[in-house]
């Protein structure tokens, strides 16, 4: 990697100030994407602002109706959390499927959501559960947060501090792993709330998206076999050396059904 300055603030405002005052500086959370990018010399930020000393960004809490996960909480902690397992087992399962043990120990929910990789798992969970992204400046609904390929609603100098998840009646996640990377070739998160069902898909396109026809069918009757016949339009889906768009479209249906099955367990 190319040399750069390294800062380790202990207060959120200090971190935000560094981020805005040093042009092109980058936040470092778990570093699971940023560090490889730096090592390959594909990015050359003048400074890294490491969030690991911001203690207030770690930890999981619940109030019965919601679970709030600090942005710097590693995936392994979410996967192993008794609270998450009890209230939103589908989310704990999702966290347990990310990467490998090393990635799960270092990678954080805030980093994953802020990066918005089109094949990352968390965006499906966040959008599927209709979570709220809490930042240093405001609260953003998941439906307004993810703006496509690596794009989010975050403004310059804005730092994710936590994600607040409403506790659903049931939820499940099914992931078809890309054979090499083990990112989601297609991952589908299904969540049932009193007022309806949300279905969010990652991996299939340039960004996480919802599937209204499946949501409508499952809201009417939460029977996963009911969506087996719902086909996804291949327009806008990703085609690459691992999977063609029509195969991804087919997998969305299969994985949605399996996510529904997982929610019923």
């Amino acid at each position, binding site marked *: 990697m*190319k*040399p750069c300055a390294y800062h380790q603030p202990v207060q959120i405002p200090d971190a935000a100030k560094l981020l805005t005052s040093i042009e092109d500086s980058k936040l470092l959370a778990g570093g699971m994407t940023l560090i490889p990018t730096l090592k*390959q*010399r594909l990015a050359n930020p003048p400074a890294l602002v490491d969030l690991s000393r911001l203690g207030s960004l770690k930890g999981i809490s619940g109030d019965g109706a919601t679970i709030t996960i600090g942005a710097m909480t590693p995936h392994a902690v979410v996967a192993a959390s008794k609270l998450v397992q009890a209230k939103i087992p589908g989310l704990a399962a999702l966290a347990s499927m990310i990467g490998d043990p090393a990635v799960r120990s270092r990678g954080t929910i805030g980093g994953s959501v802020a990066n918005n990789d089109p094949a990352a798992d968390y965006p499906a969970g966040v959008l599927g559960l209709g979570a709220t992204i809490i930042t240093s400046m405001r609260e953003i609904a998941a439906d307004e947060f993810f703006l496509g390929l690596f794009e989010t609603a975050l403004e310059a100098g804005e730092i994710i501090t936590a994600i607040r998840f409403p506790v659903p009646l049931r939820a499940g996640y099914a992931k*078809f792993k890309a*054979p*090499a*990377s083990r*990112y989601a070739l297609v991952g589908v998160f299904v969540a049932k709330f009193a007022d309806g069902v949300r279905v969010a898909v990652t991996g299939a396109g340039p960004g996480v998206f919802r599937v209204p026809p499946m949501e409508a069918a499952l809201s009417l009757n939460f029977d996963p076999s009911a969506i087996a016949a719902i086909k996804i339009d291949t327009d806008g889906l990703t085609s*690459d*050396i*691992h*999977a*063609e768009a029509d*195969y991804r479209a*087919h*997998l969305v249906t*299969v994985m949605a059904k399996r996510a529904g099955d997982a929610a019923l367990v």
Partner: protein
Amino acid sequence: MGNVIGIGAAPKRKEDQRFLTGRGNYVSDIKRPGMTAGVFVRSPHGHAILRGIDKAAALASPGVIAVLTGDDVKADGLGSLPCGWGISDAKGVPMKEPPFPMLAQGKVRFVGDMVAFVVAETPEQANAGAELLNIDYEVLPSVIGVLEAVRPNAPQLFDDVPDNICCDWELGDKAAVESAFRRAAHVARLSLVNNRLIGNPMEPRAAIAEYEPGTDRFTLWTTSQFPHVVRFLMGALVLNIPQHKLRVVAPDVGGGFGVKQFHYGEEAVITWAAKRVKRPVKWVASRSEGYVSDRHGRDHVTEAELALDENGRFLAFRVNTLANMGGYLSTFGPNIPTNLYGPLLGGVYTTPAIYCNVKVVFTNTVPVDAYRGAGRPEATFVLERIVDVAAAEMGIDRVEIRRRNMIPKEAYPYQTPVLVQYDSGDPMGCLDGALEAADVKGFGVRKAASAGKGKFRGLGYSTYVEACGLAPSRFAGRLGARGGLYESATVRVHPTGQVTVMIGTHNHGQGHETTFAQIVSDKLGVAFENVDIVFGDTDRVQFGMGTYGSRSLVVGGAALSKATDKVIAKGKKIASHLLEAAEADIQFESGKFSVAGTDRMKTFEEIAGAAYVPHDYPLEVLEPGLEEQAYYDPVNFTYPGGCHIAEVEVDPETGTVTLVNYTAVDDVGTVINPMIVEGQLHGGIVQGVGQALFENAVYDEGSGQLLSGSLMDYCVPRADHMPMMKVATHATLCTHTPMGVKGCGEVGTIGSPAAVINAVVDALSHLGVTHVDMPATPNRIWRLLQNASLPVAAE
């Protein structure tokens, strides 16, 4: 005092102590005083004219010491990277052999082709300097696939290689094959692709070179499987360094699989650069760099036809293959899809007539060379697939058609119509053993259980033979080898009776330090712990051809066995003198020289002592000392083989293939260390399964970009892809190697791809599927099911 641990025992591996405790000594661990860092600047284009390189900004960059390019290579009058094999076409016309400059001159021919070398004080500074190099490329269209490369208007890599064809090679009796096809009751036909693979050894390649002006000597530390060959090729043919002025060291090396058995341009550039900058230079490849520069493997497109009589007996086999060589000829490149492919097309069958044509083709890709198995997995795949196709078309059971055509055990030695003569084997015995071990009888029940879960289950066979331990030098010379193929070993007995072996093979994961020590321990009766194996250093080891082609035990072990016999023979002479008995009456057993029929004896240690303190010694007729050397040139290839049975389950919803059972019964001849053999079989099978189900090097046709250029996009097999394997050996002894050994390093990789794909096809055969190309990825299987002749929903 330790124990003798001999042939057939399974001690834990000696070398693992240092590997597992972090005390290995790899090239990247080595630091030399005043060491500089080098980075290679590689072509980002698949095919381009190199208009010019402006070094000024790079040279002005902090810490940069030198920038070397193809023009500097030319100015210094250095040679081209040599090809170790020169093959010819049917008329005897030699292959086209365009130069392979160590740094590109005039043109680049693949993404990764080396254009410049930047030397700086630190790796960071070298990288920064490299980014400032201003290179003027005129980009040309790339050609990637062999079918495209031989089309009339394809981009031409070399002006003097029409249609990009390096050699139009053939083997076998074409007329006899044509005649047999006219008589055939049935002809099975199959078109297939053998997918391009990338070796991915755990340790990326690396090198350090140093020049000592005081002695005018060069030292190169390199991640090589054959340091003596690098010394010869690089010293004598590229850099014009006399052999006695060049030391090549390959210390601990973290895996090779063939990727490290070539002389690479990086080695030559670094050694040359070390003298120019008058300081040691170090280069360590990144994984990404390895993807575009480590030689790739396989990459064939093949049309095969098998002629059968009305009883399903093979009458003739005809194979036409296009083999990808990449952008240049690598060290063994043209030998792999020809001499290591055509002669294996007989398999374990009595097919009387075989003809094989291979067009060896240049493309804008990384040069293709040997990768574990090298030619033999490709041959086995073609043959074992078409046998299944023929069986299905003729309505004959797949095992039965194999039995009808198999060479019976009594028929060995067996001369095939494609050059090779198998000395020994029992394919039927391996088949019977595997059928039993795999519980083939119970398959129907397992298939029904899978069907109950909505899954398709399939069983696949591969009864195969391969050729190891390449081969008599005289024979290889006729095939086009430009070097010898023997091996050497020196057994140095110390005055105290401990033993150091210097051997020309190279251990990079195979367990040689253990296996070879067992041979010595067994034969000399010395304790296992009192035998050390030295390899990988041209200053310490007399000579050697290195480790590849499953040759280390077969050829190197044979040299070691012979050298050990010489030690015993000399020991008997010393004992005869000390025991005052006729030499013919001296017996050597369990570390003791004794006079037959008496209790008079001398221990091995006493004899060693006498040899080095020759006070009471026949100095008139015998030299002091106890050190013997042997060179062994094989009298034939060895022919390991066996039967592999794969069992898969296919999820029709997603197209995912899961390998659920794997059984291998292999004939590797005498087994020295069963644990190590089992490990070699496991590793080989996993790599073959990788080819069958996961691995694929994919290029973009127009631009020549490698799309599968990282572990994120190139799927190597992982532990959770594998079931627990059942592996057993069924030995017939090799008749011509000293210990009856046949080699085991590649058998797993050779037997397994066909077994796995045959199982996948079997699982889908009820849908009309007759062939699946590798890798059988979920997308590919799903696509086949979409196009299948019967609806999936019918299950």
